[in-house]
């Protein structure tokens, strides 16, 4: 009896381990410092995680579809620079700058999707190439200059990054709304089902009449859309941006997705889990800051947590803690 109880507990841990860890972590930190769970603090954490989080939502689709997207970091820089530049361009202004930036970022996503979906090229190398190419594109576009909004009092552009509605910061609202929409898209629609099928076994998916190329293409479009949204929040929050604002974020985003439990092999993961992954990273950072530690301590903690999380995940699957590698 106790044995079965242990087993089912083990099962829950295996399936929802990351959630359990998250809750334990939150409870522990709250006991140590009640300010941790303070509503302002929570909003603060979510708001500062929103950019990474929104990107992670899109990358979740790509990863479940069995691919990688390393270009999201430089794509973020691109979209932030472009929207700021167009904002300053009298022919556009904020109302036109935003849709124009979305269209341009989606074009980049389409290139990824075309090369990886339709031409079947390796996603790691294609998006690595795109990382470099988009970075070059951004630098060429900006001439290497940082972008700033000159007249900051004269625009409503700051609402996406700094505004709030009903007491909730707008970036948090955008993150939550996008997570809900994409979560439903992934879990409840035929398209979502096809993403899982293609990532789980693309040959079997093709043999089942699923248009593999189109599905993969769409995952990159979703990823690009999320990056554009994140770029908008980024640009609006700082009202200016450097060419390298997104540098290195591709791997942090991937870390959040993996921490949430998506497999790099594709076919598994959920939006909910990714959100948990993002929040864990955010709250760890916050918790460490509250503990008076520097921001970079979180890097080390993240490292250990990622490896432990993935290790425990595969250890429960193979039923052995240590790997069978000779």
């Amino acid at each position, binding site marked *: 009896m106790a044995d079965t109880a242990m087993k089912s507990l083990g099962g829950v841990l295996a399936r929802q381990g990351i959630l359990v860890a998250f809750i334990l972590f939150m409870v522990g930190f709250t006991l140590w410092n009640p300010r941790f769970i303070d509503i302002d603090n929570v909003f603060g954490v979510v708001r500062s995680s929103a950019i990474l989080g929104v990107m992670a939502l899109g990358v979740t689709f790509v990863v479940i579809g069995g691919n990688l997207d390393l270009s999201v970091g430089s794509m973020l820089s691109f979209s932030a620079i472009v929207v700021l530049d167009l904002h300053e361009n009298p022919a556009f202004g904020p109302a036109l700058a935003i849709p124009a930036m979305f269209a341009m970022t989606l074009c980049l996503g389409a290139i990824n999707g075309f090369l990886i979906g339709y031409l079947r090229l390796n996603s790691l190398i294609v998006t690595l190439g795109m990382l470099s190419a988009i970075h070059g594109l951004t630098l060429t576009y900006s001439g290497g200059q940082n972008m700033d909004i000159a007249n900051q009092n004269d625009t409503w552009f700051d609402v996406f990054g700094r505004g709030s509605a009903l007491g909730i910061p707008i970036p948090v609202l955008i993150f939550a709304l996008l997570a809900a929409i994409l979560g439903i898209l992934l879990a409840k629609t035929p398209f979502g089902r096809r993403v899982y099928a293609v990532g*789980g076994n693309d040959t079997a998916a093709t043999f089942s009449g699923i248009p593999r190329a189109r599905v993969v293409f769409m995952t990159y479009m979703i990823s690009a859309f999320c990056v554009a949204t994140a770029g908008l929040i980024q640009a609006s929050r700082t009202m200016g941006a450097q060419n390298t604002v997104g540098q290195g974020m591709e791997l942090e985003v991937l870390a959040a997705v993996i921490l949430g439990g998506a497999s790099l092999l594709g076919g598994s993961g959920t939006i909910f889990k990714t959100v948990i992954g993002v929040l864990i990273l955010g709250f760890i950072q916050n918790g460490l800051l509250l503990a008076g530690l520097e921001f970079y301590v979180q890097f080390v903690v993240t490292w250990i947590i990622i490896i432990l999380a993935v290790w425990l995940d595969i250890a429960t699957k193979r039923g052995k803690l240590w790997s069978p590698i000779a």
Partner: protein
Amino acid sequence: MTADTPALRLEGIVKTFPGVRALDGVSFSVLPGEVHALMGENGAGKSTLMKVLGGIYQPDAGKIFIDERETEMKGPLEAKANGVMFIHQELSLAQELSVAENIYLGELPRKSFGRVDWDTLYSRTDAILAKLKVGFNARTVVGELSIANQQMVEIARALTVDAKAVIFDEPTASLTDAEKVVLFDVIEDLKRQGVGIIYISHRMEEIFRITDRISVLRDGEYRGTLETAATNEDEITQMMIGRSLDLSRNHEHVELGPVALRVEGLSCGHLFQDATFEVREGEVLGFYGLVGAGRTEIAETLFGLRKPTAGRIILKGEEVTISSPIEAIRKGISLVPESRKEQGLVLGMNCRDNMTLPQVGDLTAGPFVSDGAEISIYDQYRDRLQIKSPSWRTTVGNLSGGNQQKIVIGKWLSMRPEVLIVDEPTRGIDVGSKSEIHNLLRELAKQGYAVIVISSEMPEVLHVSDRIIAMYHGRIMREFTAAEVTEDSLIHAISGIAGDAA
């Protein structure tokens, strides 16, 4: 050492995995200079036993004796050091390395500073290759060799040590007849040198041609050893499956409907040429031939996975072009593919989602997938095909082979196709499910489906088909009705000599 001291003896080998007793007290022995067949259904424990012997798994109980000396196989190197060599079914070669490096993989001769002693390596290898009379040398890169020649590299590897016992695991799966002759010569040679040989194969014809004794495993248990000369196929089959499988010839007469599919002069490069045949509603058309004869490729072409280079496809009297599986499905063709795990199922998905995958776009309520519609389809086909699964939520990868195959069949039946193509319907599944699937295929024909069955197992083809097409080297050699076909004529036809025989 006398002839009756076994070269290799296993005693009471037990190996359990979580929930499964894979080997349950297996004992048998191989004499020097003997070819000993090891037979059993897939899952009977042959490969587990070989992994125990090769030191890849450690047995929970039991002993291994080599020349009557108890030996513990702690790892692959130990097996090799003790003179036990393996020739694997799946080629275990590194494609980018040379023949010599592959043969001496794991024990390349060394000089100082860990350098490879190339001279020794190449001269040793060439000496071995000379014995095998092969047309390549030690420096050839393995990736440039044909599959058969790669198999010879595997065999050469077994000759590098003073082998006491050599295990051949389905060695002829990818060999041509001429290459088989060379292989059998090599085995004969080894035999003469007093090596004990374990020969694992499903091919009765080979078993009776080259083996001296046959040991049979069933469900991880040792069922006994027979003298090859004193037994027959039926007796072995009985031992393997524990009861006889009804594979009586199909003589039922069914009212045939109109022609569902007609194919004229269909070709695809050198894969198959000029295939012409038709299948009627209510009929099972069998395709029989060796692996690589072009049967699967025809099915794939009909399903839009290959682009035909010539020919016409006429579906219900109307000529069609099929350029993708999506189109094939829309036009009413379904394919239960050859490889269940690679092509048929998304193993990490649950039963229901796998079954409804091709039509998930139609099972919607608004923009969302309708849970109810999906579950009702799953329930319907679970009952109809008697799928044994704890729940629709069960991950398909956790089901038995037979139930997995039923999920695939259910997936395609639920599409209500005009033509159902089933490629290797019972590969790797247990006997019980096998006959259920056979009955199901007959049943479907009775209900008016046009069914095409592709199989490498002659009894299966004979059992389920109304007509049989024999293929050889990409060409249709002959068409038989159930009434006229004999095993001999079928074997002749698929060996490329049908033209003369007919």
